[in-house]
């Protein structure tokens, strides 16, 4: 918070909430009644509009927290206790409870995979994040193409982390085809790390661009699928709740449509359309060359026309306008976000980590509640101040699937776990559970074997070369005999390599050493 009266504070009007004085009450900031009223604050809070409720909640939270730099005076402590009490009552009244939790250890790799699975998008990896083994195989590709079936992903330890999620199991064939096309050595699979695989996924689906994103999913991400399901199943209820909140009907219908068709909940991204034909829309449609013979002024715009124009990126032709003729912008209206009820870091507390991206672990919620309430107790701490536990707001009723406000009447409940799809999904995923530590131990063993084999191969060839060098000039007959033997061995290896159509690590080393020897001779 800027210092009271500072230049910054004056410029940005930052002196507010927690430092309110009596003059603020005179400014009729209705949310302050929650702060000053100790008796009926809960009722007052319920009656406030949503934007004021958020202000009241944030103010209480700031008042409840100990001051960062200076010590607290006795009056500050009383105020903090009082605010904490009010927050607790408000939380309970809207179905939330504050819990103190200890940390479950979850690896960086697992968290990385969970994120990718949730959004269906893969991050491009900077080169230094890739393992040297993977980089080695990128620079040393096979001379010939190997059939995709030779890439056995079940033998790749790091891939087992991905395999726990259905979305990644579904793209295994695409990855195999990509690796085959790019002439990767199948040996690489056993040595690759999680981030190496995300690089492969990124490159496999690089051309699959939608809104500029690189998606690896053929269908929707679990997040978007969830939003679509909620919109389709509870559409009428959502409209009723949002209407009651006093939101513009055109925004409500456009939001619902965007949720149903695209899983979009970000109001900035939503094109708000008119519900009925207006003179301007008919003119615009005519100008765009769309026949308007069947459309009449004041009639409801058919949803098929809206969907068609949206698909063609021409939704702006139906854009809703205010009384001044300006297009209604989505940013004027609330946005919604998807929250993980069980935190990703807590995935280990579930039956298996893939469940963290199941429908019943998602909650659709306004972005303000998501940021300032549900994640309101998240804190960024320096490494030296990390605590063994953290505080998090949990839902009292785990079946809550959407909350459009604080009031319980704006909450929607659903038990997704009874559906057949859910049960099937769960049964399937349960077969692919792995222990991260075991998988990493396997990767370490594979790498150890790889290195020892490489060392052995190098030792063998080097020792032979040394012997030949030593004998050169001493026993020329022996030298000729030895070189003939080597040539024979080389031919035999080359024949085997062609038969298998795969060059193993040993073969690569052998071939290279042989080439090296030839060059020297």
């Amino acid at each position, binding site marked *: 918070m800027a210092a009271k009266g500072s230049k910054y504070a004056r410029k940005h009007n930052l002196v507010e909430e927690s430092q309110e004085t009596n003059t603020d009450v005179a400014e009729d900031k209705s949310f302050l009644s929650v702060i000053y009223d100790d008796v009926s604050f809960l009722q007052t809070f319920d009656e406030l509009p949503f934007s004021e409720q958020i202000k009241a909640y944030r103010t209480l939270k700031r008042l409840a927290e100990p001051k960062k730099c200076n010590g607290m005076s006795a009056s500050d402590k009383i105020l903090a206790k009082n605010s904490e009490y009010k927050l607790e009552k408000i939380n309970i009244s809207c179905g939330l409870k504050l819990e103190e939790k200890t940390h479950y250890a979850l690896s960086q790799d697992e*968290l990385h995979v969970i994120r990718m699975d949730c959004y269906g*998008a893969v991050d491009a990896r900077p080169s230094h994040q890739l393992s040297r083994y993977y980089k080695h195989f990128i620079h040393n590709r096979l001379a010939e193409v190997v059939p995709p079936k030779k890439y056995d992903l079940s033998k790749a330890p790091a891939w087992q982390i991905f395999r726990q999620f259905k979305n990644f199991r579904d793209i295994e064939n695409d990855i195999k085809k990509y690796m085959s096309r790019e002439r990767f050595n199948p040996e690489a699979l056993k040595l690759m790390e999680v981030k190496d695989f995300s690089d492969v996924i990124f490159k496999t689906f690089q051309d699959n661009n939608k*809104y*500029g994103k690189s998606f690896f999913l053929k269908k929707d991400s679990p997040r978007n699928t969830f939003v679509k399901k909620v919109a389709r199943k509870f559409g009428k209820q959502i409209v009723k709740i949002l209407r009651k909140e006093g939101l513009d009907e055109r925004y409500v219908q456009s939001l619902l449509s965007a949720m149903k068709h695209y899983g979009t909940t970000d109001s900035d991204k939503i094109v708000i359309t008119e519900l009925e034909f207006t003179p301007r829309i008919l003119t615009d449609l005519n100008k765009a060359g769309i026949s308007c013979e069947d459309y009449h002024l004041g009639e409801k715009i058919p949803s098929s026309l809206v969907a068609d124009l949206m698909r063609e990126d021409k939704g702006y032709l139906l854009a809703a306008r205010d009384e001044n003729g300006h297009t209604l912008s989505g940013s004027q209206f609330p946005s919604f976000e998807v929250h993980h009820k069980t*935190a990703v870091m807590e995935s280990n507390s579930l039956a298996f980590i893939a469940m963290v991206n199941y429908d019943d672990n998602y909650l659709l919620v306004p972005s303000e509640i998501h*940021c300032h309430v549900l994640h309101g107790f*998240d804190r960024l701490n320096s490494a030296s101040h990390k605590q063994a536990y953290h505080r998090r707001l949990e839902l009292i009723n785990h079946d809550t699937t959407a909350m459009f406000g604080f009031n319980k009447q704006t909450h929607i409940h659903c038990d997704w776990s009874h559906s057949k799809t859910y049960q099937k999904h769960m049964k399937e995923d349960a077969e692919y559970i792995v222990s991260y530590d075991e998988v990493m131990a396997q990767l370490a063993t594979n790498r150890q074997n790889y290195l020892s084999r490489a060392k052995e191969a190098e030792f063998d060839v080097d020792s032979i070369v040394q012997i030949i060098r030593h004998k050169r000039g001493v026993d020329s007959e022996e030298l000729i005999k030895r070189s003939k033997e080597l040539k024979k061995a080389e031919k035999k290896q080359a024949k085997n390599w062609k038969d298998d159509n795969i060059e193993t690590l040993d073969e690569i080393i052998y071939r290279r050493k042989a080439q090296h020897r030839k060059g020297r001779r």
Partner: protein
Amino acid sequence: MRKLAEFLAQCGYVHLEKPLNVKNVVLAQKELTRQGLPMLPPSFLDFLRQYNGLSAQDSKILGIPPLANANLDIIEFNQDFNQSDDMVILGCDDFGFLVYNAAAKTYQLIDKDSSMVLEEFADNELEYAVMSVLHVSYE
């Protein structure tokens, strides 16, 4: 950075705030310092010159006030969520905070619950960090 800016410009879903005002940058840096936080790194300021705060699906990059979307205010956000003295929060998604760690001179994605480092990017790799938090990618 320009490539990323062009890419984001093509993405219809990100909310684009007004261009950055230099005077406001100075005031914001002063305010962050007053809060005991490190100053914003030059590469991030370069990015803010193109996009002063933007919001995407479940994630956001914070900007320097005044902003049309008050939820993107970097000063307010740091005041509410930052208890460190060597990191400044630049954005967030449902999983973590995107921060600049002044001590390590790196961009980091830090888990909201455990403060564990999820991703780490060098000072000159801001574009990877931004793509990571916005769940977009390009090549």
